[in-house]
């Protein structure tokens, strides 16, 4: 409880300050209770941080370790903003004055001096290192990114579908009590009573009930196949690159499709389907035979998805070292998938070496694209490339879709 001891008209800075006419009576709250200026400025700071995070989003999210897909959020560690002043350079050795039991020549260590400049401004604030962990919704980020990178929205292939849904349609004189439309019933009653000789209150004929009807909905289903080469030649880093790329592809596709299924397939000389969690941890040994992976995908499509009703996407990540003897089979298998799919993409992860798609698989995709199928490829050497790859695919994909209708 705040109380002024000087009740006899002490200077009040309130009305000047807030400009909100906080002319408080003796009983009313004091002007400074009305809002917290510190909190206001803190919120402004927060807003600025978010703005700047947003500006640098592609760089920030391309770092592999910000993805937390279960929670549908991305955590970005940020430093508090510093308001800069002219300052002297931090010297190698800083002199200061202290107090206590110490003799000349004493040496001790002060861990608080190990990082960051500690010189104080006149505000007396040592802008030390406090890290904030801002959490962003993935959906928001994806929206910003699409805006930022001016990526096109995909056009979905709309299939005839069995999916049906109840929707509200029409009224009837009979129905379940829970569907009684009061407003409409009342109107009916008023209309009836307008005629001469009407009975006064509601009668059963006045009642109107909302009706439901079954409607077919066009299906906007999509399934994305992520095919990953897990052979011995793929390093952990390669796989992480692929994962980051896959993550953002899923996010991009989710913008368009209400229900998006993901299928994870890994292959070496054989192919297996994995759950999402296993997918990025498995590691096989041995060579690379891409056709096994493509065949597996084909198999799954045939078994579970109808290409006429479902939008199929295939993204393949590999280092491209397919065995030469496999070329013909891989081509055949992939072409059959590409014919059914909305788009097939290939990212070549080759950290260190930048061979730029001059590999077996690279050539295969180039042929496919040349044949007019919706296919594209991109070389991914570094986390910085992830955004280029995502942009490349989404622009190419929408072009491909425009072309095919």
């Amino acid at each position, binding site marked *: 409880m705040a109380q002024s001891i000087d009740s006899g008209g002490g*200077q009040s800075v309130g009305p000047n300050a807030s400009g909100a006419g906080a002319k408080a009576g003796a009983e009313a709250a004091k002007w400074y209770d009305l809002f917290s200026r510190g909190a206001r400025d803190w919120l402004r700071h927060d807003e600025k941080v978010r703005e700047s995070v947003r500006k640098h989003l592609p760089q920030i999210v391309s770092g592999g370790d910000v993805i937390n897909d279960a929670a549908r959020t991305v955590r970005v560690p940020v430093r508090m903003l510093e*308001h800069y002043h*002219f300052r002297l350079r*931090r010297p190698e050795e*800083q002199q200061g*004055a*202290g107090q206590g039991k110490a003799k000349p020549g004493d040496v001790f260590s002060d861990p608080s001096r190990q990082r960051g400049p500690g010189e104080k401004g006149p*505000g007396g604030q040592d802008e030390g290192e406090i890290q904030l962990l801002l959490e962003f919704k993935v959906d928001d980020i994806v929206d910003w990114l699409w805006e930022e990178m001016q990526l096109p929205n995909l056009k979905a292939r709309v299939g005839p579908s069995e999916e049906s849904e109840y929707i509200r349609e029409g009224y009837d004189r009979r129905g379940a009590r829970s569907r009684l439309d009061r407003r409409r019933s009342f109107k009916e009653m008023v209309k009836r009573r307008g005629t001469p000789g009407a009975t006064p209150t509601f009668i059963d004929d006045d009642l109107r009930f909302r009706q439901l009807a079954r409607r077919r909905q066009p299906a906007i289903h999509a399934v994305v196949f992520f095919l990953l080469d897990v052979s011995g030649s793929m390093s952990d880093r390669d796989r992480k690159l692929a994962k980051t790329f896959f993550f953002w592809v899923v996010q991009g596709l989710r913008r368009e499709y209400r229900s998006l299924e993901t299928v994870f397939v890994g292959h070496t000389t054989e192919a297996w389907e994995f759950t999402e969690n296993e997918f990025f941890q498995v590691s096989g040994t041995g060579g690379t035979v891409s056709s096994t992976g493509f065949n597996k995908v084909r198999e799954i499509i045939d078994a579970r998805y109808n290409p006429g009703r479902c939008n199929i996407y295939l993204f393949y990540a590999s280092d491209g070292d397919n065995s030469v003897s496999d070329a013909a089979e891989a081509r055949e298998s992939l072409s059959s998938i590409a014919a059914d799919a909305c788009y097939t993409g290939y990212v070549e992860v080759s950290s260190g070496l930048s061979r730029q798609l001059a590999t077996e698989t690279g050539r295969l995709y180039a042929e496919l694209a040349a044949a007019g199928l919706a296919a594209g490829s991109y070389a991914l050497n570094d986390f910085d490339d992830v955004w280029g790859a995502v942009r490349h695919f989404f622009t190419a994909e929408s072009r491909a879709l425009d072309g095919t209708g």
Partner: protein
Amino acid sequence: MTAEETWQNYVQRIEDLANRSGLSFHPVDFEAVPDSFMMEIAVYGLPVRMPHWSFGVRYIYQLIQRHMGNSRLFEVVFPGNPGHAYLAASNGLAENILVTAHVLGHADFSKNNLLFRRCQEQVSERIVEHAANHARQIQQAIETYGMQRVEVVLDAALSLEQHIDVDLSLRRERYPEYLTDAKPLVDDAFRKRFAALDPSAAAVGVEVKKRAPVPPHPERDLLWFIANYAPEMESWERDIFLAVREESFYFYPVFATQIMNEGWASYWHARLLREASFIPQQAYVDAIKCHSDVVRPVAADQQVALNINPYHLGFSMWEKIIEKDGLDAARAIMQQDDDFGFIRNHLTRELVEELGLFRYSARNDGQVKVLEHELTALHEAVLSPKYNFGAPMVSATHVRNDGTLELSHDSSVDGRGLDLERSRKVLDYVHRVWRRPIVLTTVNQAGSTLELTAP
């Protein structure tokens, strides 16, 4: 409630006692306010101040500090006539009695210290109202021009808040536009004859006004200089610069006399409490406990502190001075000095030994080494964070024909170059209001000249 009422009963008696003890102060309005508001005053430095995100950062640091329980504010006092003192509502009776006495010490100091008086004459004795007025004016600017544009100006102005020149007056005239000392014409035989032939023609032809360079001398008061000479600033933007500058003029004496001022107030609260026979026994004991917490040099669980508690240092120095030379001499020092003179003249060798002050050098890896005792060097170690309002010496030296602003950092005074990364950011801020290129000269690590530019 009752605690507050009884505390109020003591205010008059403490004031009377202070008057009898020779303190002389303007009336002070005491007000008990909630802790949250106390914290805001500490963050902003004034009860109502302009909005800016950087205060939000300080606010969070304060909140964290408070949650960790290592800072507690008892009072904040604003000099003026009348002075304003805000007391934390959570203070107990004993604390409030102590704080009241402390506030009167501050009020005496700010009324009599010459630096305070000078700055108050310039800024007026109603800084609290002025600052509130600035806040309102800036709020209006935000409504008219939008947050973004106002923030750009505040970013620049507040980043230069230490760069004022308190030796010159708050309200300065612009530089003279023309050089006054035009060279006298050579007084040769030809001219004499020429003048004799036709006096009017001789007088006309020679008067050539020469434009004075801007600035005519290196200008330390960057806020004033930019507000007055920026080629493309709008008048409301200039007003914001001048508002920030006025508040800096208010903050300077607070900053430059902190050790003296806090010491003086601590000395007087201790003394008034001792002499106040009307305070109940228990309250006195509690208040003295509180006093010893405030002036404690080293935290309870530590042997050594790597900074100096200004309350403790000032308090001990004033006690020593009054014990040795008497109250009148102390009052004269209080009136005439600031921390620089106070420390250099009155922090004696015995006192240093008595208090256990030392000088150290800290390396970046966290190793701290205590250095040899040397009095002058110790004085400077205490004072070095206070030189030039705690900021490097940066002055405006020239404005080129294309409007480029040349700034120069005087590394011979500061001993080393600027933190380049931060300086670049400051230049970016300033560039957005100066709206022409900016060049800053400083030195690099090796001591050779270096130019930073924006953009």
